[in-house]
């Protein structure tokens, strides 16, 4: 009798230990605590606004709070450097901007990060860049513009934001493909750029689509950097490709994670972003503001990124900017 009780008790204890052990060591479901979403640009700017549109839905999709952290500076480099150094547990992600994350490591000596270190999770929007002049400008079409530029080398000033940024690379590609000579005037941000252009201090602008939409009654858009015509805002404006200039121009935004983040966690984040960025709230708000929504998952994002990196590296080598 005693040995039977002992056996029962022993097996009960073993069972208990087993169950308890499994419960304690079983992988916890991700995510369990808040996600830190690093924004590498100033609050109120495009990167901030596009992330905030996602914030609430994202928190719902993941079941945990999503908190924005600003790490601003050096055109985003400070934030991406911080991301690369943060923990690879999937709880810290950052918004990333193309072409910035490609061009900065190419052109700077100590950027603090390399393009490939930012693991792509999802690409959710593109802000197409368009060429525009004011309503009082003598250029009625892109052809007028280009004819004038042909005859007057370097006279036309075009406003852009920064150097080796989306606008600048657009300018470099445009002048390379058309052979025209313009003068690029860099500004410190979209706000001063647009202000200077509207105020008459530059002849033309390579501007973000949302800025062009905001001021569309004061300006004339000559060409857009999209694949197809930019509807519904500028259905009558030709694309660069239609004009025989084989390029697209835009600033794209996505999210990325530190290097060596576990792939299963990235998959969870990817799925959440996909749900959010196909949702009515996100798509509606973004289109209203003049942005173009993209839905590229992690693998497609990486492929696209590699393609762009090749494109820009070749262009910059051709222009002699890098060896």
């Amino acid at each position: 009798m005693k040995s039977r009780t002992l056996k029962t008790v022993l097996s009960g204890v073993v069972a208990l230990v087993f169950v308890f052990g499994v419960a304690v060591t079983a992988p916890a479901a991700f995510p369990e605590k808040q996600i830190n979403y690093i924004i590498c640009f100033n609050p109120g700017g495009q990167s901030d606004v596009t992330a905030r549109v996602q914030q609430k839905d994202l928190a719902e999709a993941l079941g945990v709070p999503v908190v924005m952290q600003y790490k601003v500076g050096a055109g985003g480099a400070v934030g991406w450097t911080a991301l690369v150094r943060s923990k690879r547990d999937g709880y810290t992600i950052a918004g990333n901007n193309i072409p910035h994350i490609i061009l900065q490591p190419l052109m700077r000596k100590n950027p603090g990060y390399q393009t490939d270190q930012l693991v792509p999770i999802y690409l959710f929007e593109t802000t197409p860049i368009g060429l525009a002049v004011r309503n009082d400008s003598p250029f009625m079409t892109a052809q007028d513009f280009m004819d004038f530029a042909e005859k007057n080398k370097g006279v036309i000033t075009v406003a852009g934001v920064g150097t080796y940024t989306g606008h600048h690379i657009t300018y470099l590609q445009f002048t390379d493909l058309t052979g025209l000579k313009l003068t690029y005037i860099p500004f410190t941000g979209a706000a001063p750029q647009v202000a200077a252009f509207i105020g008459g201090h530059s002849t033309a602008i390579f501007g973000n689509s949302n800025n062009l939409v905001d001021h569309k009654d004061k300006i004339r858009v000559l060409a857009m950097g999209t694949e197809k015509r930019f509807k519904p805002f500028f259905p009558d404006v030709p694309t660069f490709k239609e004009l025989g200039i084989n390029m697209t121009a835009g600033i794209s935004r996505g999210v990325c994670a530190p290097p060596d983040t576990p792939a299963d966690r990235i998959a969870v984040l990817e799925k959440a972003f996909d749900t959010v960025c196909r949702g009515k709230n996100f798509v509606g708000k973004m289109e209203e503001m003049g942005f173009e929504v993209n839905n590229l998952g992690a693998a497609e994002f990486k492929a696209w990124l590699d393609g762009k990196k090749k494109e820009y590296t070749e262009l910059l080598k051709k222009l002699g900017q890098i060896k």
Partner: protein
Amino acid sequence: MSESIVLALSHLVEIENLILILAGVTGGIVVGALPGLTATMAIALLVPFTFTMNAVNGLITLGAIYCGAIYGGCFSAILIGTPGTPSAIATVFDGYPMARKGEAEQAIVTATGGSVVGGLIGATMLLLLSPLLAKAALKFGPPEYFWMAVFGLTIIATLASKSILKGLIGGAFGLLLSTIGMSPIAGDVRFSFGQPELQGGVELMTALIGFFCIPEILFMVEQRAKMYTLITYKRRKGITSSTLMKVIQKPFLLIRSAVIGAVVGIVPGAGGNIAALVSYNEAVRASNTPDEFGKGHMDGIVASETANNAEVGGSLVPLLTLGIPGAPPAAVLLGALLLQGMRPGAELYTVHAEITYTFLFSLFVANIFLLPVGIYGGRAFSRLVTIVPMKFLAPTVAFLTIIGSYAIRNNIMDVVIMLVCGLFGYIGRKLGFHPGPIVLGLILGKICETGLVQSVLMGKASGSTWMLFFGRPISLVLIFLCLLSALWPFVANALKKRGVLNLDVPEEEGKEEDSELG
């Protein structure tokens, strides 16, 4: 449209909104008062809370926070000699000496009075003159920004009246500091000495805390055996009302400072940092007793605080009409507007008229609320600083500097930079270099450089760089102001020696400001 106005006014007297404005003002003041936390940060941190509110509630809360935060900077400026926000830099010059003289409460009441008046005038200009002013603001191009920066640099002549040479050296040093990090024009990273963290450059607030706060802390360490508390305070009845009366009796000063503040705010990229300094400069020049500035002269506080609160209204002018923010906090408000689905421009005044007008009117209420909150809160706060022994005050301030400089960009490097700036500031002070010109150089560096380089590029394209710099109407006015400001100390001395003191100088300056807008 008039029915929108009536509706807006009716919204304003709803209890819910009044409470939100009060809460926003108080919260803003607290954040503004802590060195390291700026108005921009305050608004950015609280934007998420406004998502759950409707457009009216959210916007008036953010507006109230903005007003409160800009005002709140005066508290630490006066009580511990560090500006709580960059817009309060000039308040330190006379506010802190007043507190050291035992007149802390007068200083705070003066600052409050000035802020309220400035804020109301700024809000009025916003309400009535927006479209006109916005058009004028756009006329500022790269050459104008350059000359504006140069004009700002001439303020050094006023700030460093004891040794202009050392002031200029300080200013040049500040300009150099501003070049650290990514070049705004060329994209190159400068002076990072291989450290990727330095790509972001020296953040203004970090340097401010370092240059103003650390020396004060070390000063308290120096005095540890001799002084028990940092400032003393003698309670007297009727201080508040008598000080307020004195403030109201300076209409020229108030109006001039407010106009300067609003105008500087309207120009995108200038912001409250410069508004207060320019106003301070003008106050010194217009005064019959310029030597008293820097030693605890009421006018200095009025000039600074009136201008920086007027700047709030000014910065919203290009924001609401064109979607171009006039100052960093306004940029965050832009984001908030966009997220509520409101696009800046004519749309705001027609489709969303009710919300917009409620917001505009709420600014008046917010500024009025500054009075009770500031006076009672300020009184309590200053009592606190007078009671706490330096033994605890100095380390607490040190703690605030560390937490504050970290909070700016969540970057420990900033705290290191802050300490380094602090040591430079401390040694500099001992050697006779006032921190004001250094900080001025830091603020103006980027504006000066981008203006200069962009203008040179534009000049090359148009074929005539000379005409670009010297041929534009607004530039010419600014150049004239530069010369006036730079040569003023010498001119004033000469005039004094001849017994001639210009009593109608304020009038003349008012005209100069107007012609800028014409």
